């Protein structure tokens, strides 16, 4: 099983080097082993899929019409019933440009599909609290936008998705969108749920009181994502080396050994980022927060920009000598993608 896993990953990784940006939607019908169908879906969209351990083998059927990436993926996982790609119990941190499928009961989140995106309603939390003049209730709903692997949307990349909820009707058709009346704002404790996923953006939305068991008849609006195509740029790992990134310069400040032990050295590479005009692009806009280097495992390793937004450190994997080169994911011109959503009859019994 493990060998098969490795072969599948190797095949899929190799096939994805020249992925087109916006593959067409698909209409097809097929039956067979779940993994093979998932690989077929990966080939059709060129959006990388990784299989976590322990997925039960199963023959399933898929039938989709004019479906984008997530609509097709959902149809496949729904048919299996024992797999999912969100809220996985996995120790390995997921990468942003792949979807990891793991074992677990398929969870049917109320959702809306647009092109290759999916907007889902993750949870409803009704809070009843004491307030002036008696009881006050409200419902916090959490929306999540899933971006396909080839379109970076994650908040982790320094991007911010703007959400606008335009309509919210409860099961009786009553408007429950906040802002139509004054809500008590004296809350001293706020509560949130803890879920996250790769290449997603979440939005908590507070609505006027309704019964979550009966749910919402309609929840609609749009998510606006500022995304950018990414090019990979390489620079030498030597003090004083620099790389032109848009209207700014990225420079290697220092390369120091983090731990002195044969074959176990880690290397700290310090970078500073200077805009040429002083008011140019910011580091977070210019680079995705990940880098990879030679001598490592080839994985993109996250780094955190320091307070002030002008410097960061990349710590390498254990290696005897410092890497000769390092690669960054440089963001190009930003483009705005608007993802409308319209979720109907969402209730959590």
């Amino acid at each position, binding site marked *: 099983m493990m060998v098969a896993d490795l072969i599948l990953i190797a095949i899929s990784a190799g096939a994805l080097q020249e992925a087109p940006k916006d593959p067409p939607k698909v209409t097809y019908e097929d039956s067979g082993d779940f993994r093979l169908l998932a690989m077929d879906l990966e080939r059709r969209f060129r959006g990388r899929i990784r299989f976590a351990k322990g997925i039960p083998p199963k023959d399933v059927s898929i039938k989709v019409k004019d479906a984008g990436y997530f609509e097709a993926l959902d149809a496949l996982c729904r048919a299996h019933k024992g797999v999912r790609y969100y*809220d996985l119990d996995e120790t390995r941190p997921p990468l942003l440009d792949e979807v990891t499928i793991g074992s677990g009961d398929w*969870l*049917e*989140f109320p959702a809306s599909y647009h092109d290759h995106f999916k907007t889902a309603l*993750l*949870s*409803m*939390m*009704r*809070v*009843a*609290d*004491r*307030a*002036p*003049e*008696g*009881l006050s*209730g409200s419902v916090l709903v959490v929306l999540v936008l899933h971006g396909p692997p080839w379109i970076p949307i994650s908040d982790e990349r320094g991007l911010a998705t703007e959400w606008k909820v335009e309509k919210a009707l409860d099961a009786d058709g009553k408007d429950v969108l906040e802002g139509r009346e004054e809500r*008590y704002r*004296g*809350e*001293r*404790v*706020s*509560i*949130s*749920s*803890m879920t996250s996923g790769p290449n997603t953006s979440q939005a908590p939305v507070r609505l006027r*009181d*309704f*019964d*979550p*068991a009966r749910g919402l008849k309609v929840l609609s609006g749009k998510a606006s994502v500022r995304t950018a195509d990414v090019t990979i740029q390489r620079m030498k790992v030597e003090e004083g080396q620099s790389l032109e990134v848009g209207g700014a310069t990225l420079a290697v400040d220092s390369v120091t050994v983090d731990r002195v032990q044969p074959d176990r050295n880690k290397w700290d590479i310090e970078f500073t980022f200077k805009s040429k005009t002083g008011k140019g692009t910011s580091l977070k806009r210019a680079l995705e927060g990940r880098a990879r280097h030679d001598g490592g495992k080839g994985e993109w390793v996250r780094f955190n920009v320091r307070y002030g937004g002008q410097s960061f450190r990349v710590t390498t994997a254990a290696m005897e000598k410092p890497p000769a080169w390092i690669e960054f994911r440089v963001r190009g011109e930003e483009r705005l993608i608007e993802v409308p959503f319209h979720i109907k009859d969402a209730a*959590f*019994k």
Partner: protein
Amino acid sequence: MLIALLLSLAPVQDDVSKWIGRLESESIEERDEATRRLQTQGVGAIPRLEKARDAAADAATKARIDAIIAAIRKSAELAKVFGPTKRVTIAARGKLIKEVLGELRTPGIKRIDPGRLDVESRIDFQVRNVSWWEALDRLARALKSRYEITWQSGDYSIELKPGVEAEGPVLYFEQFRISVAEAKRVDFRTPAGKFEHALVAIEVRHQADLISSRCPVADVVRIDSVVDAKGANALIDPFDLPLRSYDNPLLLSYQANAWVRHDAPQPLTVSGATDMPFVSETKEIELDLEGDRSRIEVGKARLSVETFEQTGAGARLTLRAEAKDDKGEEEREEKVPWIMERLDDSSEVVLVDGAGRRHAGSRVSSRGGKDRCAWEITVSTGIEKPKRVICRWVSEIHRVQIPFRLEGVRLPDRSK
């Protein structure tokens, strides 16, 4: 009513027995009233309270008396550190609201903003010898209002808003007000399942004339137990929940919260304690910019002018403080906690020139922590013949530890 008033005017020996008897009352209100009355009896009442505790039949009454004894001792301690608590007596009949609001003036609160109230209308309002927080609560309720605390340009204000605050147990203790700020039910649903829980938040407000210290303390407010009406533990381990809670305390307050079982028989009793750090003593410190008097000892700390330079636009100064190292690491940490919090935030650092003129400085940065710190101060005006620097040093930090027990806590109704 008149009898009760007269009794309260002249505490007599028999009062203690009477109020001790009412500690076993079925009524929460009567028990609370008895508790309050006993707490005002002073340390002289402690021996009789101790006897009553030893003779009490049930554990709840014993616990109540213990809490009263602790409170009396605590009152005496706080009076020593912060001075007497401001008490308010207002006897207003047909008085203008603006005049009644004026009677609540207190150090640290710049104004009480009446909001949408008609301050020219009249009100009957009476309180007698209550703490400032209690007077404010009762006046707000009489005006069918609640209030918010705001801060602007170094001053606190109280802003009245329409709508009465929800009823809940409140303890007024000297300069402090301890209450249940939130009691909420949470019904959380996802496709994976349904979780019902409840949450209780305790808030401790302090008078505006007490200066809180940022000196880190593990639990400024600690909830030790939440017990349901049948005496069973109602607390839930927050790590077992799919939810996380975040406190948004009001100004002049500290807060803590606890998750509890949503189906716990009510009312609940919440017990815990505070450990709030306040500045209790400051002293003015003068250092020369150079020479022997550019380094001095203040209590267990050494303070010095590390650098001074005049710049084109003004001057830049670095003050440095270190815990004295004469008795080892343990001594340093014990006796001079959090050096970083010792330069008094509420007063300016001033540079004095050769002619005795004072130039106010601005703190631009501070680096340090437990046992050492350096503060960078700039002065934006030119200074001729600069001589010395004056600042205020926090010489004492007092941690106010008040045990509390709030009975009669009710969760909101479950229905929509």
